[in-house]
C-alpha cells in the first residue's frame, strides 16, 4: 500500500540531491540543474498532499504555479548564464566576481 509518506520521502530525496548539486557544482549551469530538482520536488509534494487530502484540483493549481515559476526562472537564468559566458568567457560561478559590463 502506497501512502503519503512514500511520496514525501521520495520528494525529500530529490530535494536533498538538488541541494547537493547546488552546493557542490562550480559550473553555473550545474547549479541551475540543482534548482530544477528542488522545484520538481516541491511540485510533487503539492500533488501528493492534494491527492491524499482529497483536494487534487487545488494541489494541481499550486503545482502548475510552481511549474510556471520554474519556466520563468530557467529562461531568465539561462539568458544571464549565456551573457556571463560571452562577457567573461567562463561559466565558473566562483570566478565571476566583477561587475563590469
Amino acid at each position: 500500500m502506497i501512502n503519503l509518506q512514500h511520496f514525501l520521502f521520495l520528494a525529500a530525496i530529490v530535494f536533498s540531491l538538488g541541494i547537493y548539486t547546488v552546493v557542490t557544482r562550480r559550473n553555473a549551469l550545474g547549479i541551475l540543474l540543482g534548482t530544477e530538482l528542488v522545484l520538481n520536488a516541491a511540485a510533487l509534494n503539492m500533488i501528493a498532499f492534494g491527492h491524499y487530502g482529497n483536494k487534487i484540483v487545488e494541489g494541481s493549481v499550486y503545482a502548475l504555479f510552481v511549474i510556471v515559476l520554474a519556466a520563468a526562472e530557467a529562461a531568465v537564468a539561462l539568458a544571464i548564464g549565456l551573457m556571463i559566458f560571452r562577457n567573461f568567457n567562463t561559466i565558473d560561478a566562483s570566478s565571476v566576481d566583477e561587475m563590469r559590463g
Partner: protein
Amino acid sequence: MSPIEPLVFTGLAALTITACTLIAFSKNLVYSAFSLLGAFAGIAGLMILLGADFVGVIQILVYVGGILVLYLFAVLMTAGIGDVKLSNPVISVKIAAPALVLLVLLLGKLIYSTHWFAAETTTFAPTTSAIGETLLKEYLLPFELISILLLAALVGAVAMARREVKEGKGS
C-alpha cells in the same frame, strides 16, 4: 487502488532517484543535463499515478519539451570551454556528502514521525475542466499575476539575448 500500483510506484521512484543521483554525482555536465530527462519523466509519471493527469502532461510538455531543450542548448553552447575542471565540485565532497545523508535522514525522520491526516478513499476523475474553473474563479488574481510574471521574464530574457547579439555585430 489497483494491486499494480506499488509496482508502478517502485519503478518510477527507482527511475527518478537514479536520474537524480546521476545529476548530482556525474563529473560531466552533459550527462547531468541528459539524465534530467529521466528525473522529469519519472516525476511526471508519479503525478499521473497520483491522479493529477493534467499536471503530469503539462510537466512533460513544459519540462521535457521546453526547459530540458533550453538546458541542453545552454550546456552544449558553453561546453567547449567548460571542461572537466569546471564540473568539479567546489566544496569538498567529504563535507557535502555527509551533509546530504544527514539532510535525508532528518527529513525522513520528520516525515515518518509527523502524524499526517488519514488517507481517505480518493476517486480518480479527469481534472482538466475542474482546474480551469478553479483557476478562473478562486485563483484568478494569482493566475493573472503569474501570467504577467511569465511575460516579463520572457521579454527580459529576449531583451538580454538581443542586446548581446547587437554588440557582437557592432564590434
